[in-house]
Every structure is written in C-alpha cells, then in structure tokens.
C-alpha cells in the first residue's frame, strides 16, 4: 500500500490490515514517522521518537507473526507531553521542566505499550495544560492543519491537547492521548475535526501524568472515529493501585457498546446552553444533532441545568487553587530548571519566575490568592459549594434522561494570536466543556459539520458517571448521521 493509503486508514481498519498481514507494523510506523517529519510546520510534536516507534513496531510484527497479536499491536499514537515516559524528555510544555527524563512510566502509557501501541512522539500542548489554544507552550504554538478557504492565516488547534489533535487531524498520528481538565480533549477535537473523549473521573489513572488540577484532570483518547476512541479507551482504562482516586469498577467492552441502536433513549437538551452571542450556525448544528438523534429513534427532552453559567467562574477558582498547590514542586531542587540565587529563597523565586510562562503565573497567583488567609472562604470554599450544586444539576437531569447533547465549543478555531489580550475571552472557549469536569462525567466531542468559513464544529454528548458506553453509542449514531468526510487543507492540498 502507498504511504498515503496507509495514513488514510482508521485505527479499526489498520488493526484489520495488520492482522491480515496486508502491511507490516514496521511499514506502518515508517509511513507515520515520515508523516510526523512532514508535519513539522504544525509544531504538533515537541519530541518525535522515530527510533522508538520502529523498535516497538518490530516487536509488534513478531507477535503478529506468531499469531499472538495484542489489541493495539502496531498502532502508532501521539502522547501528550504531559504523560511521563521513562527516559524520554517530558516537558509539560514548560521551560521549568528543562531536560526532565522521567525515571518511570505513566500508568496510561504503560498500558498502551502493553497493548502493543507504537509511540510516535510527545505532542505539544499549552504549558502545564493551562489553555484553550496551544499557544502558551515554551516550545512555540501549535498550528491547526485546517485553514479557512482563501485565508492563509494560521489557526489555533484548540487546547490544551492541541498537538495531539493536530497530529491526528493531519494524519501524523493514527490516534493520540490527551488530558482534559476543563475541555482540553474535547475543544481541540472540535477545532480539528476529530473525536475526543473525556472519560469519567477515575476511569483512567492519573499516575505519572503531570498534575494541573488533580480533582479535574482526566486522561482520555483522541482519534478519527468513535470506534477508534473506544478501542483506545479499552486499553487505557481500569483501576490503578497507584492512583487513590482511580475507580474500582469493572471496565466494560466499549467497542461492543457501538450498536447504533438508541431507540427509546432520552436525550437531554439543556436550555441554559443557549448562551448570548453564540453563532447562529452553532445553534443550527445543535438543532441538526437533535434532529439526527430523533430520526434514529431517540426522544429529545428539554432539561434545565440552572448552574451552568457559574461553572466557568467556579472552575477558575478551583483549578488555579489546585494548580498553585501542585506546581509548588517546581522549585529548582529535584528536577528541571534551576536559576541560581544567593539564598534558597532567592533560588526558588528566580527559578519559578524564569521557568513559568505568563498564563501559568497568572493561575498560580490567582490560586495562591484564593487559598490565602482571609480569602479562602470567600473564593475557594464558595467555588467548591457551587461545584456541589453543578453536580446536583446533572444528577437531577440524569433522573430523566440517558445523556445530554450540546455543542462542544461556542466557536470554530480562531486565528493564532486572537483572544490573547483578555484572559476571560480565552476562558470562554470552555463554557460548554467545564461542567463535565466539575461533575466528573464522561463526555465526547464528535465532528458534526463545518462552519460558514469552512472549519469543523463538534457536538458534545455527556453521560452518567461510568456510562461511557451510552456516550459512545450516541456519539456513534451522530457520527453516522453527520458523515463528516472533510479533510483539513494540510491533508487535502498537500503539506505546507
């Protein structure tokens, strides 16, 4: 098969092709290594690992030859550079982790390698996963493989898992893993025209993932189809003794959930998601989604999530508060950057002053303030109480419906450099995605259509805790109905 044909396969198709020996894992990895190289202008990878990819592919070929294939044997994936990978540079997109070679492997990546997956490299991201545009990385901004027709300005891929999303969309990775603290898997999936799933909190271990906001961080899969994402999640999920918040619940067969049958299912349509200033085309796409699900035999039900508008401000207290605590470990003593000072205190201050970028500083400072004496109750406690109410909103709604349909993001991808003057304008990207993080619920974004200026838009399905099966099933129905076959200009018109 030609490289182009190999790169066009979905994960499920590649699995079959490898199993039938139509091509080898090594050929496949080599084609992807070339694609990673060709995608360099997008800056989707911080550290490509082509030799590792070939070695892993060779091991997969041996197993395939012995007839002992593993579920992901020979599947080349990108790893957000927030997952620690043993002996391979792990940066979190930050200057402060200069030269960090983890002596251990994250649980999620370990499981993927044990399932036979092949690592193409470490994907670029917003610094410490703080952002919605993948422009805050110390290693430079990521470019979206999509552009508006007739407009040469580079667009953001969304964030923070923007490198992962751009790589999958540009066919420089077959699938990828990301993390989602406020929308960081789903919003870039929407911006890049791919599928992204944030599983239930506790479904995938956080062990070995560089922490941003521990009660909100969710590792999850990104891919070209709903089935691909289901296959990835299967390998990633499960209890881990090393993460005390990882759930001791059985892992179902996610692929088996893709029956396409949603007859009789009740789909919640929250009226509070009709926010001011939402583009008409997104509202229209949402309605289209409702119509698709109704046509498939589901019953749309209007629901109310009255606390929705408070999710974002609550998030912007809770996440920075947790971040200010988590990021205290970057002190120039044990790993990463050190800027020498006259005293220990001065070394800490100079190291952190030089090592953290503008957005990280902003959030650490906000978090420090919200947790400081005299302000704790007014900000942090208040936000945690509002979080309780947001979770209750969902509980009430899930008494009446099986899942909830909304847009993923209030806009399509925007031009790199836009929305940087006002932090809140950037934060509003996550208005539809943040509630599921606060409530820990599974939610997926599926590409459903194009904006008037030719960019992908996603629809989001949110489900009950530990019911990824329903989320995937409904996402699969949306995917079949939408028939999203558009390709980004980077792929359709040849590489830049």
């Amino acid at each position: 098969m030609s490289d182009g044909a190999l790169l066009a396969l979905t994960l499920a198709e590649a699995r079959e092709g490898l199993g039938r020996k139509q091509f080898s894992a090594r050929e496949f990895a080599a084609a992807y290594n070339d694609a990673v190289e060709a995608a360099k202008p997008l800056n989707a990878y911080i550290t490509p690992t082509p030799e590792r990819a070939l070695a892993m592919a060779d091991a997969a070929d041996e197993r395939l030859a012995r007839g002992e294939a593993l579920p992901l044997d020979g599947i080349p994936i990108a790893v957000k550079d927030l997952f620690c990978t043993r002996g391979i540079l792990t940066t979190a997109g930050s200057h402060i982790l200069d030269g960090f070679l983890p002596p251990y492997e994250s649980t999620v990546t370990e499981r993927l390698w044990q399932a036979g997956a092949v690592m193409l490299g470490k994907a670029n991201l917003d610094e410490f996963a703080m952002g919605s545009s993948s422009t805050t990385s110390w290693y430079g901004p990521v470019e979206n493989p999509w552009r508006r027709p007739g407009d040469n300005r580079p667009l953001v891929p969304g964030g923070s898992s923007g490198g992962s999303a751009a790589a999958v969309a540009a066919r420089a990775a077959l699938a990828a893993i990301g993390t989602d603290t406020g929308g960081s898997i789903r919003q870039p999936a929407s911006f890049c025209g791919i599928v992204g799933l944030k599983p239930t909190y506790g479904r995938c271990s956080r062990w070995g993932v560089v922490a941003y906001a521990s009660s909100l961080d969710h590792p999850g899969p990104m891919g070209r189809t709903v089935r691909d994402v289901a296959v990835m999640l299967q390998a990633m999920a499960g209890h881990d003794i090393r993460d005390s918040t990882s759930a001791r619940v059985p892992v179902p067969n996610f692929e088996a959930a893709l029956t396409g049958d949603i007859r009789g299912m009740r789909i919640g349509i929250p009226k509070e998601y009709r926010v001011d200033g939402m583009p008409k085309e997104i509202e229209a796409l949402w309605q289209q989604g409702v119509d698709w699900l109704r046509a498939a035999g589901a019953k749309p039900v209007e629901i109310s999530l009255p606390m929705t508008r408070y999710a974002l401000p609550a998030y912007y207290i809770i996440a920075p508060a947790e971040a200010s605590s988590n990021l205290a470990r970057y002190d120039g003593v044990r790993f990463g950057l050190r800027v020498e000072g006259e005293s220990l205190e001065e070394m800490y201050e100079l190291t952190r002053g030089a090592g953290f970028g503008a957005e990280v500083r902003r959030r650490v400072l906000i978090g420090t303030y919200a947790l400081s004496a005299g302000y704790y109750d007014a900000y942090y406690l208040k936000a945690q109480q509002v979080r309780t109410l947001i979770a209750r909103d969902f509980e009430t709604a899930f008494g009446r419906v099986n899942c909830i349909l909304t847009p993923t993001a209030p806009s399509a991808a925007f031009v790199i450099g836009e929305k940087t003057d006002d932090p809140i304008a950037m934060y509003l990207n996550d208005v539809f995605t943040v509630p599921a993080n606060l409530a820990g619920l599974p939610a997926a974004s599926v590409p459903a259509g194009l904006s008037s200026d030719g960019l992908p838009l996603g629809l989001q399905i949110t489900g009950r805790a530990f019911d990824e099966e329903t989320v995937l099933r409904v996402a699969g129905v949306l995917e079949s109905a939408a028939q999203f076959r558009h390709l980004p200009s980077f792929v359709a018109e040849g590489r830049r």
Partner: protein
Amino acid sequence: MVLDKAAVAHIATLARIRLAEAELESLAGELSHILDWVEQLNEVDTTGVPPMASVAAASLPMREDEVTDLGCREAILGNAPQVAHGFFAVPKVVE
C-alpha cells in the same frame, strides 16, 4: 481594582515567583479583572451546601504498610540540577 501592585507583590512572594517591577502593574489589572468576573459566584445562595473537593469516593483505600519501592536513589537523583554525597544540594541555608 481588587488587587493593587503591593497586593500582587505579596501574592508573588507567597507563591515564590519573582516578578519584575514593571510586571506588577499589568498583573494587578489582569488578576483584578479575573477576580471581578469570579465575583458573580456571590449571586448563588450556597447556605448549607457542602463543599465538593472531589467527585471520587471520599475514603482513601488502605494497604499493608510495606516498602514497595527501594533502591532507586540514583534514578531519583538523576534529574537533579545539583547533587552532593547522594543528596539533593541547595544553596547554604544556615550561616
């Protein structure tokens, strides 16, 4: 403005982040803007509502108190900017 320059300088000291004098003014504006926006949480009546720290089960699992990893000193020190005699080394703290 919720925060002035002096307040930002104090928070930065608490957070151990050295800021240039010139950055304080713009950060005071940005952080105040964010805090002003967050103030809308006060519209919500949270009387008697328990705070939620995590959606995960509240009780931590217990295990036998035994050593599960040992002998990885070299691996741990391998990333340190400065090491002496098998320890992390820092600037002198006691005169």
